[in-house]
């Protein structure tokens, strides 16, 4: 687990060292070339948004070791917070993004206050139950959320960026703006992983009893991580609201929670790049197979199962392991 980004596990591979040191920069590079390698723009934006969502989920699952089945509540909650701020209160786009991020954090604080006392299957079930409650809440509160029709009219046309007007209806300009925001979020994530708290997070994953014996408050560490994870998920949701100009009730659906688990595992949990690789692969699977058949999800499920069975560390996790082994045999 956690190879890129593991300042803790120094293993001295020459090939990965520069990437590991500038991991956020490297993902940004990946983001920059993305629009040219994907068949169309919207797919690249999709990868961007879900990649950030999965990266936030990965902080909790891959680095701390807690499996949440309710991350839709944080993603959808962020999307609705952003959408409601813009549609119902007429706030500017940046306030929408800020409120989306804070919304994700507030919801995870609420869920986490209860859920982080548990772990394993109980944690997964409690987060799932909370997410389902939020789904029905949003479904019922039509005046705010638009209910089953979703929240429409999250329209942002122009964005003033340091007095530089940007046409937000232009997909290319929109992509760059979002790429810049996701890039900043990733820099923040990289900083968190590199911080003292990042070390505690890994220590708790590695050995809870030992972390406690060192004098760390394990429950508080879990809650802090969950809230930070919720911030990234909320920002991703808010970005999606701006991208689609609407927030659909599906963002809160448990399928969204499942999707982020799949993307993270596909790419490689506990690695910095894995979530983006997973989001990209998943988006491509969807794109290619949905042209052939409406049952593309069946194929995506089958591929996912093959991965779990034969590449449990995910694509990026496997690549890291492979390069590490190669280096080991070369140096010996």
């Amino acid at each position: 687990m956690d190879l890129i980004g593991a300042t803790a596990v120094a293993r001295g591979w020459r090939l990965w060292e520069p990437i590991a040191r500038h991991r956020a920069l490297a993902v940004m590079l990946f983001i920059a070339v993305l629009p040219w390698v994907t068949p169309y723009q919207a797919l690249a934006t999709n990868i961007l948004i879900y990649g950030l969502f999965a990266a936030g989920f990965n902080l909790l699952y891959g680095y701390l070791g807690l499996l949440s089945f309710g991350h839709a509540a944080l993603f959808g909650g962020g999307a609705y917070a952003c959408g409601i701020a813009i549609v119902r209160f007429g706030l500017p786009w940046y306030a929408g993004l800020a409120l989306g991020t804070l919304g994700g954090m507030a919801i995870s604080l609420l869920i986490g206050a209860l859920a982080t006392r548990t772990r394993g299957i109980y944690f997964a079930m409690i987060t799932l139950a909370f997410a389902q409650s939020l789904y029905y809440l949003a479904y019922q509160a039509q005046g705010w959320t638009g209910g089953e029709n979703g929240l429409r009219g999250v329209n942002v046309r122009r964005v003033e960026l340091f007095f530089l007007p940007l046409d937000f209806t232009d997909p290319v300009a929109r992509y760059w703006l979002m790429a810049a925001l996701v890039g900043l979020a990733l820099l923040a994530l990289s900083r968190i992983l590199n911080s003292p708290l990042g070390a505690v997070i890994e220590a708790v994953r590695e050995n809870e009893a030992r972390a406690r014996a060192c004098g760390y408050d394990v429950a508080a560490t879990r809650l802090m991580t969950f809230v930070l994870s919720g911030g990234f998920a909320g920002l991703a949701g808010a970005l999606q609201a701006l991208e689609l100009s609407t927030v659909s009730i599906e963002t809160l659906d448990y399928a969204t929670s499942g999707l982020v688990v799949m993307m993270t595992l596909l790419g490689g949990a506990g690695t910095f790049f894995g979530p983006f690789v997973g989001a990209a692969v998943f988006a491509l699977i969807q794109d290619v197979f949905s042209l052939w058949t409406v049952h593309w999800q069946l194929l995506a499920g089958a591929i996912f199962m093959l991965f779990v069975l034969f590449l449990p560390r995910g694509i990026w996790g496997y690549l890291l392991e492979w390069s590490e082994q190669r280096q080991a045999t070369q140096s010996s």
Partner: protein
Amino acid sequence: MERTEAGDAVILRTEAVSRRFGNFVAVRRVTAEFRRRALTSIIGPNGAGKTTYFNLLSGALRPSQGRIILERRDITGTPQQRLVRLGIARSYQITSLFPQLSALENVRVALQALTRSRYNFWTPRARLAGLAERAAELLELTGLYHRRHRPAAALAHGEQRALEIAVALAGAPRLLLLDEPTAGMSPEETREMMRLIVGLAERHTVILVEHKMKLVMGISARVMVLHHGELVAEGTPEEIRRDRLVRRVYLGQREH
């Protein structure tokens, strides 16, 4: 404030401490004193109540009766996390480390726990002043410096036990409790570990629980003998060797 010399030399005291599990009395009214900057060994045959007594000292178990005094403070029933901050560190009979983290990081994280920025989520951890250096020093002391970048899981058994001691030392403990640190070690590793413990006892107060009497006789300042949960003898290794009761309950087993 008047302090007697004897009072100053004693860091930890148990007063008629007992621990019951249902009807079974694992530790019975043990009254003992532990001296500062000395190595005290607790020995006894299997089932003598050594580990239970050790767990009472480290706060992992609450005594059913009696009091435990650290310096002048009654610490009876104080939870283990609090005792860590009061300066009591322990090792485990079963290795307990962060397996995927490097040896250095294992110690560094333990050091970080005692700083005010332990939950800081923004400053790079490398900027916490002196932690990595102090961790490296502790690895040097425990003979693990050359292995510092290895994940704990990749270390040999003896090295893992030494790393545990480095982690325990990270808390700058006033009292170091070691539970059978040589369990499962090869003779070579055992010798290394004993040398390390002797070195530690020069500057720290060390309490050692050990099953193998031979190991501790040469190195301990004081030896306590437990048998059926009772303290049957206490004194210098020489006194213990001559003690009739000890010879009967402990050494006697080997002579037959």
